């Protein structure tokens, strides 16, 4: 109790509260601007923390982390471009809500879901940090691979229009991410001997290309087609979801938060994977799955609660084992180190007050993030008043610079240009983009875990079925894929039958 009071006093000191507030604001801004991410923001903040005492320093970074994770939903919902990779799943329904005039509802719901996700993961962390860390430790390469494969199998669920085109899209996404240096063997792949291509395609760069460039092209096409007549501004209202409305999704938020916490706790996964898993879970468990992709509010609730829960989940191995789950927590780790706090088992024994302090700082960060976002919504939605073609010019600048800023690399801006053009072509060819994103997100981890598992087992494939979690997830993946193939076949058969008498429905896609 003494400890808690001491931690409270340290964490609620004015300069600490101020640091958390600044961090949260910075995080929300970086998150909300497509291309600028919280990882970049955290790296920028690190030098500032050198001269600060440890509480404000940690508060500043935690605020940036949490603010960034939450802020990513803003541009995902408003302009259909994810502010961070973790918000990619939010685009699917969030942007559709905006197109149906419900932008502010979506934004408000996203904030609420994010806060719930954050709090649930914090509670899990507080009550069971040891248990979760031990469970996460059971996820070795084989188990993580099985989990990721299960995630990938939901491609089937996310592209009901055509199983074949969905698969093609997924494979394309996986292929793009193999370019560059192979992390395991240090071998160049498809670099054509150049140093530049060794950096490979960055996930966020690919996402900017896939979402932003077609958006810009569409805006230009629209402008051209309308004889350069500007569309009447969209009706912009800043209404917030009612508490009752939010409560109705409470159970879903809780489930998705737990998914996010669990995925976040497993090293080698991360926010984007958690968000997609939660999205497909929400869709699978919904009584009206057909509404998804057309502006279903659950499609915003699920990924947003999950990706924020990842922040708490990732803190579990970071604090209890000293293992950073992603680049953002790696920055957090070095900032802790520089203030003499070495994460790991000893931190809980030697500095329990620091741990309590971190819990309090996280709560504080969420208070600020929610306040900033709720106040911000009325300003954010004003963006929709900007004529589409001028907004497109702004998007070119933001995404061009954003792509550059991730690795300070011009190659990334060129990649946006080239991949964006290809993405537009694929959209015209009716190849769905969502499976591509899923492939991009899961690809590197999938390959790495698969190969590492086989190195560990010296090439014996039974490593994948000899452990319970691994066998379980592989079984689930097989079920999902099998079910989809079955439905697909049934669809083809039905189409054949219908076609024999009339020849009328030759082009009908197989449908479930």
């Amino acid at each position, binding site marked *: 109790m003494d400890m808690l009071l001491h931690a409270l006093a340290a964490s609620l000191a004015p300069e600490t509260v101020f640091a958390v507030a600044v961090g949260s604001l910075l995080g929300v*801004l*970086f998150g909300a601007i497509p291309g*600028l991410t919280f990882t970049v*923001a955290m790296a*920028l903040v690190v030098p500032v923390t050198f001269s600060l005492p440890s509480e404000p320093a940690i508060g500043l970074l935690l605020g940036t982390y949490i603010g960034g994770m939450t802020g990513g939903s803003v541009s995902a919902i408003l302009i259909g471009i994810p502010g961070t990779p973790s918000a990619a799943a939010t685009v699917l329904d969030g942007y559709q809500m905006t197109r149906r005039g419900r932008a502010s509802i979506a934004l408000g719901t996203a904030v609420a879901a994010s806060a719930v996700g954050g709090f649930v993961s914090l509670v899990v962390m507080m009550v069971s940090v040891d248990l979760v860390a031990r469970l996460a430790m059971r996820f070795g390469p084989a188990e993580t691979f099985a989990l990721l494969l299960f995630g990938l199998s939901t491609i089937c669920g996310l592209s009901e*229009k055509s199983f*074949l085109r969905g698969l*093609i899209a997924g*494979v*394309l996404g996986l*292929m793009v991410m*193999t370019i560059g240096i*192979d992390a*395991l*063997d240090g*071998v*160049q*792949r*498809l670099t*054509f001997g150049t140093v530049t291509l060794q950096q490979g395609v960055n996930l966020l760069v690919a996402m900017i290309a896939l979402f932003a*460039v077609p958006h810009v*092209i*569409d805006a*230009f*096409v629209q402008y051209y*087609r309308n004889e*350069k007549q500007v569309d009447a501004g969209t009706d912009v209202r800043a209404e917030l979801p009612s508490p009752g409305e939010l409560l109705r999704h409470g159970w879903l938020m809780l489930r998705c938060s737990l998914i996010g916490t669990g995925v976040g706790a497993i090293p080698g996964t991360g926010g984007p994977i958690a968000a997609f898993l939660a999205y497909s879970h929400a869709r699978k468990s919904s009584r009206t799955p057909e509404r998804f992709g057309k502006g279903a509010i659950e499609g915003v609730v699920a990924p947003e609660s999950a990706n924020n829960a990842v922040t708490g989940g990732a803190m579990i191995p970071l604090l209890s084992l000293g293992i950073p789950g992603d680049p953002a927590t790696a920055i957090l780790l070095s900032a802790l180190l520089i203030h003499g706090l070495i994460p790991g088992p000893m931190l809980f024994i030697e500095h329990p007050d620091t741990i309590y302090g971190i819990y309090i700082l996280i709560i504080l960060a969420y208070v600020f993030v929610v306040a900033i976002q709720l106040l911000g919504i009325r300003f954010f939605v004003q963006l929709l008043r900007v004529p589409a073609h001028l907004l497109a*010019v702004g998007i*070119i*600048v933001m995404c*061009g*610079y954003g*792509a*550059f*800023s991730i690795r*300070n690399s*011009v190659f*990334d*801006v*060129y990649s946006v*240009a*080239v991949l*964006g*053009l290809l993405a*537009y*072509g694929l959209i*015209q*060819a*009716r*190849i769905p983009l969502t499976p591509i994103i899923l492939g991009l997100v899961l690809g590197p981890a999938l390959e790495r875990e*698969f*190969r590492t598992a*086989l*190195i560990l087992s010296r*090439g014996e494939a039974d490593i994948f079925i000899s452990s319970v979690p691994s066998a379980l997830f592989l079984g689930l993946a097989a079920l999902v894929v099998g079910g989809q193939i079955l439905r697909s076949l049934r669809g083809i058969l039905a189409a054949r039958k219908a076609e024999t008498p009339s*020849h*009328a429905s*030759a*082009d*009908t896609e197989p449908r479930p």
Partner: protein
Amino acid sequence: MARPAAAGSRNPAARRDAITGAVLLVLAVAWSATVWLTVSPGRFGVGPRAFPLYLGLVLALLSALLLLTGLRGLRRTSAAAAPAGDDGDSPAGAPLTGWPLVRILGSVTAIMAAYGFLMQGAGFVVATAAVVAVTMWFALGIRRPVMVLATAAGITAGTWLGFGVVLGAYLPRGTWYALF
């Protein structure tokens, strides 16, 4: 680019699938061949070559299937015009085709690439101002010099202040000259 044919005699969806399948098949074969020739197979087990290679082959198989589906659909030309909105989310109105579309595609790609090139060489400020002005003048065809220049200056100043000063991000200063 799969350019949908005029509605009527031919089945546009099938044609589109056939073209997509063919293009992707070529790409997949080229990819697999490149991987086979340039990536080392690794010392044992599943090396660095396996994933890209098998992905390429799987893509070849899938795109061949798509090509076949498309060709089969094309043979049934007598079929009544396929329902247009079959795949859902098609953009409203008639699609833009031909020269105007190519111009837009080309300009957006070129602008993005030029932005990257200029950012490194001429620095963030010059690159941003140039890109905004060029986009508005040429790509959008807005021929109001005052408005174009004002917007270019406004966006540049805004992002420079916002990114560089307020958020403290690194803005490239340009390597072609040593001005600032």
